[in-house]
């Protein structure tokens, strides 16, 4: 049994090596923890290593934490809260919008923020053809803190794009000015863009509450910017944004207490498990989107309104929503294409009782099919020309919530007697001309609601275009654009109505257009909205004190996370609504009030009202930050905690190297013998 003795010697050598190596460098790494650090998920993919140029695709954009906008958009109230701008005036008689900028703002490299920077950013956006340039034709500086935008087309959405969507000021003049000048001179935007994309600045420069420090293969690190204009409100010293590849791993992070704020898809069972943790706090908000079944009008049976209605009646929306994610998807009440939070817009229709709820009703579905000549034999439906009624359903593979929803739809249609086949091309194929966008399906699944409470976005997506392809391509040339509405007793052009929503400042005209569009969607069912998505925000209440979402004004702050959870976080931090928990960090903080008010301060907003237009109500309500409680004593107390970082893991790692070395030594010895 020499063999065994050989092994024994190997094991002994290994253990020796491990022991000596452990002694060498498995010393606990003492780390003085004196900073308040917040962990939030930043990336689903490894962050790009060095893409500091915000205009380059795949750039590192840590939301409003680093880059600020002219104004922040409160999603629920459709109001704009000043950020880099302090006020704005719509001068319709002169055809301009004047934006007054905040003074005393600095870029992270210390340069003052002026109008030049806004100009630079907007000039580059012009070359990039960003949507705001649909509404403006020029931008110029009246002085260092006043910008004038020349308006091409007055539209209700103008302010939305100008202040919020494209209002993120990312291009300081002292860095990107040369490109903006070239565009202003009239050089071909494409060549300028090519050079711009290749350009790589030394680091990320923004004006936000946090300064970019560095990026590693696994996280992005930000630290507090001391010269930030509202620095007194910011009580967090560092933000670490790890990259997490999937929801599942995200849940694990939560449970381990390794994330302080984030949004992940989360089934109820996982949520319940998580809520057992003492630090767990969960806020459910509306995602402001949902999923709908899209009918292909090239299919001659689906062209018939009765058939689409029959399918709608044959599907139990509750079950489908539960399949997609119980507790995460709410079945829509009225399939109109509008979100629940937008239902005020159609309250007249609802109270008049003209909207069809399409409650699950297979008998009615059967009657509808029979009314257009379909027949049922042996539990299977046959078309009027005697062939089995067969449909192809598609869903993007890998998007498991949608796939399970479609699986349930398929199940229910099968139970109803329609032959269905579910295909799941993986998502890049699905969103291509080979599948959904090319119209290769009978019933597909798509978003509805489009991340905006104002009804324009939802109807633009439903009636006009999806992913920049006209609906007539995606849903077939027979997709209707002119429809007769029995309730209103008139024929409407849906595209024109959508345009009214985009341009009109008149609340009444907007409302009327929205109601007609919602009614048309409900009556003709070009698509069938099934369920609306909820977002689950997780927050760590042991580490930080968060605004209580059960109080309505506070909830609005959370709801902002739909469509940009980092922006919502940045907003909460900068108004002082999120503070470190003194019990955990050992710091003294001024507690925010229980109800966070985003106080409305009368800012000079002059809207020169034209003859017909009603005062642009929502757009003029402006708010600035309050001047109360400024005595925030963020004494960065040094609670020196010794954190043993290298624990068992390192020992095991060492064991493996030890083993390797041991094998090596064993081999050498063996050779020697």
């Amino acid at each position, binding site marked *: 049994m*020499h*063999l065994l003795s050989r*092994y024994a010697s190997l094991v002994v050598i290994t253990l020796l090596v491990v022991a000596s190596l452990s002694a060498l*460098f*498995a010393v606990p790494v003492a780390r003085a923890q004196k900073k308040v650090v917040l962990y939030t998920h930043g990336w*689903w*993919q*490894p962050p*790009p*290593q*060095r*893409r500091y140029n915000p205009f*380059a*695709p*795949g*750039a590192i954009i840590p939301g409003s934490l680093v880059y600020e906008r002219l104004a922040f958009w409160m999603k629920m109230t459709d109001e704009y809260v000043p950020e880099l701008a302090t006020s704005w005036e719509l001068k319709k008689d002169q055809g301009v919008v004047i934006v007054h900028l905040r003074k005393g703002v600095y870029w992270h490299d210390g340069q003052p923020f002026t109008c030049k920077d806004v100009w630079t950013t907007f000039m580059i956006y012009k070359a*990039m053809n960003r*949507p705001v340039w649909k509404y403006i034709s020029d931008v110029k500086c009246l002085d260092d803190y006043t910008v004038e935008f020349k308006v091409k087309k007055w539209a209700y959405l103008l302010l939305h794009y100008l202040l919020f*969507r494209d209002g993120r000021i990312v291009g300081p003049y002292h860095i990107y000015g040369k490109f903006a000048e070239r565009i202003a001179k009239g050089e071909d935007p494409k060549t300028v863009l090519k050079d711009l*994309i290749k350009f790589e600045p030394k680091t990320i420069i923004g004006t936000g509450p946090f300064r970019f420090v*560095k990026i*590693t293969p*696994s*996280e992005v690190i930000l630290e507090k910017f001391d010269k930030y204009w509202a620095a007194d409100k910011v009580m967090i010293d560092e933000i670490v944004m*790890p*990259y997490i590849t999937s929801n599942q*791993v995200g849940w*694990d*992070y939560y449970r*381990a207490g*390794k994330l302080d704020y984030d*949004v992940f898809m989360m089934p109820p069972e996982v949520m319940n498990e998580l809520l057992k943790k003492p630090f767990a706090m969960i806020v459910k908000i509306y995602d402001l989107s949902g999923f709908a079944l899209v009918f292909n009008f090239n299919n001659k049976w689906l062209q018939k309104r009765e058939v689409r209605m029959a399918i709608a009646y044959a599907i139990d929306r509750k079950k489908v929503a539960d399949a997609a994610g119980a507790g995460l998807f709410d079945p829509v009440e009225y399939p109109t294409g509008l979100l629940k939070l937008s239902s005020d817009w159609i309250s007249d229709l609802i109270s008049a009782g003209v909207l069809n709820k399409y409650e699950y009703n297979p008998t009615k579905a059967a009657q509808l099919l029979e009314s257009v000549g379909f027949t049922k034999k042996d539990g299977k439906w046959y078309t009027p020309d005697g062939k089995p009624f067969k449909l192809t359903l598609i869903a993007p593979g890998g*998007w498991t919530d949608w796939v399970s929803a479609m699986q349930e739809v398929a199940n229910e249609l099968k139970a109803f007697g329609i032959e269905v086949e579910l295909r799941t091309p993986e*998502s*890049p*194929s699905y*969103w*291509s001309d*080979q*599948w959904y966008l090319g119209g290769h399906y009978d019933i597909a699944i798509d978003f509805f609601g*489009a*991340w*905006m409470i104002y009804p324009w976005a939802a109807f633009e997506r439903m009636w006009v275009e999806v*992913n*920049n392809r006209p609906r007539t391509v995606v849903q077939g040339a027979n997709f209707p654009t002119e429809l007769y509405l029995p309730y209103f007793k008139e024929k409407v052009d849906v595209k024109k109505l959508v345009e009214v929503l985009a341009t009109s400042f008149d609340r009444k005209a907007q409302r009327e257009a929205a109601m007609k569009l919602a009614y048309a969607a409900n009556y003709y069912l070009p698509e069938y909205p099934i369920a609306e998505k909820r977002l689950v925000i997780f927050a760590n209440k042991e580490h930080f004190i968060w605004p209580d979402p059960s109080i309505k004004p506070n909830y609005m702050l959370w709801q902002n*996370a*739909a*469509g*940009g959870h980092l922006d919502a976080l940045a907003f909460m931090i900068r108004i002082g609504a999120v503070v470190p928990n003194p019990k955990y960090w050992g710091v003294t903080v001024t507690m925010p009030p229980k109800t966070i008010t985003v106080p409305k301060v009368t800012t000079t907003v002059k809207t020169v009202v034209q003859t017909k237009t009603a005062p642009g109500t929502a757009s003029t309500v402006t708010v600035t930050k309050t001047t109360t409680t400024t005595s925030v004593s963020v004494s960065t107390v040094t609670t020196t905690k010794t954190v043993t*970082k290298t*624990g*068992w*893991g*390192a020992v*095991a*790692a060492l064991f*493996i190297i030890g*083993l390797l070395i041991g*094998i090596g030594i064993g081999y050498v010895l063996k050779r020697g*013998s």
Partner: protein
Amino acid sequence: MRWIYKRLIIAFLTIYFAMTFTFIVIKAMPGDPIQALAQQFVRQYYMSYEEALAMARSVAPFVPNGSLLQQYVSYMAKFFRGDLGVSISVSTGTPVTKILADAIPWTVLVVATALVISFGLGTLIGMAMAYKHGSRLDSGLLIFFSILRSMPEYIVAIILLSIFGFQLGWFPVRGRYDYQALEALHQGHVLQFIANVLWHATLPILAWVITHIGGWALGMRGSTISVLGEDYIGYAKARGIPERRIITRYVGRNAILPLFTSFMLSIGFMFGGSIIIEYIFSYQGIGLILYQAIENRDWFLMLGAFNLIIIAVVIGALLADLLYGFLDPRVRRGAQTV
């Protein structure tokens, strides 16, 4: 010498044709990068489609155009000059060579360590099993390794991550190293950095080792048993050669030879398989890069990663061939058996 030249030419041709094949297959994929990117932004950054598309749009200059043949010729011509194009998705605009060069060492670290450990331990255990052939220990281990071998590595990886990464918290759950460790490296604490890197690599390595050690052990067991039955072992014993020498020189060497080819081939297999392991552990090696490239329809990056693996495998096989020639004289006579 002529034999080596011939092998080299064949290797080159293999690389060339494999690259062509990959090129055609990848070009046949449906979907275009801009759409793919935009959709991904929508889902991942919770942003509206319009914003996402605006972000993705500026990619246009990098998307190749021209007929398939033109694209092929230009790609190949550039490839052999060392220009692999630029990436669309990962750090858009960065040369593919740079991304790959950054990723490869880490995959090599994980794959090579895992391979060496599983092969080393596996063959040792396999030999021991063969010596104890038929004993209770042998059959117990046989069942144990059979079960291990039946476990797909993605399942093992999820279990490891869940238990050791999160429940017990012994190991880091993401990345190649901590940024504190990188700082330590800059301050000259090289050992601390190495320890950190190994600590991060442990779970991925372990996932590979657990799923692969069984295969090697079983293979070595079978091979050793057949060698033990050979006549020359009996002669050697009869001649009074010390047992230790018989074990190492006669049995070990001859038993390990048949495993050698599969050892070399499994390098390529593991490079390809690292997609799943690196995906689960968020470990940025070539597998994760390749997965992202496929998801984003990042053609140049996909081609680059594929071709790199192809070249690595061909070189590996070439080395195996040459080494095998040295180790086993029978090969030179062309009487290679399995």
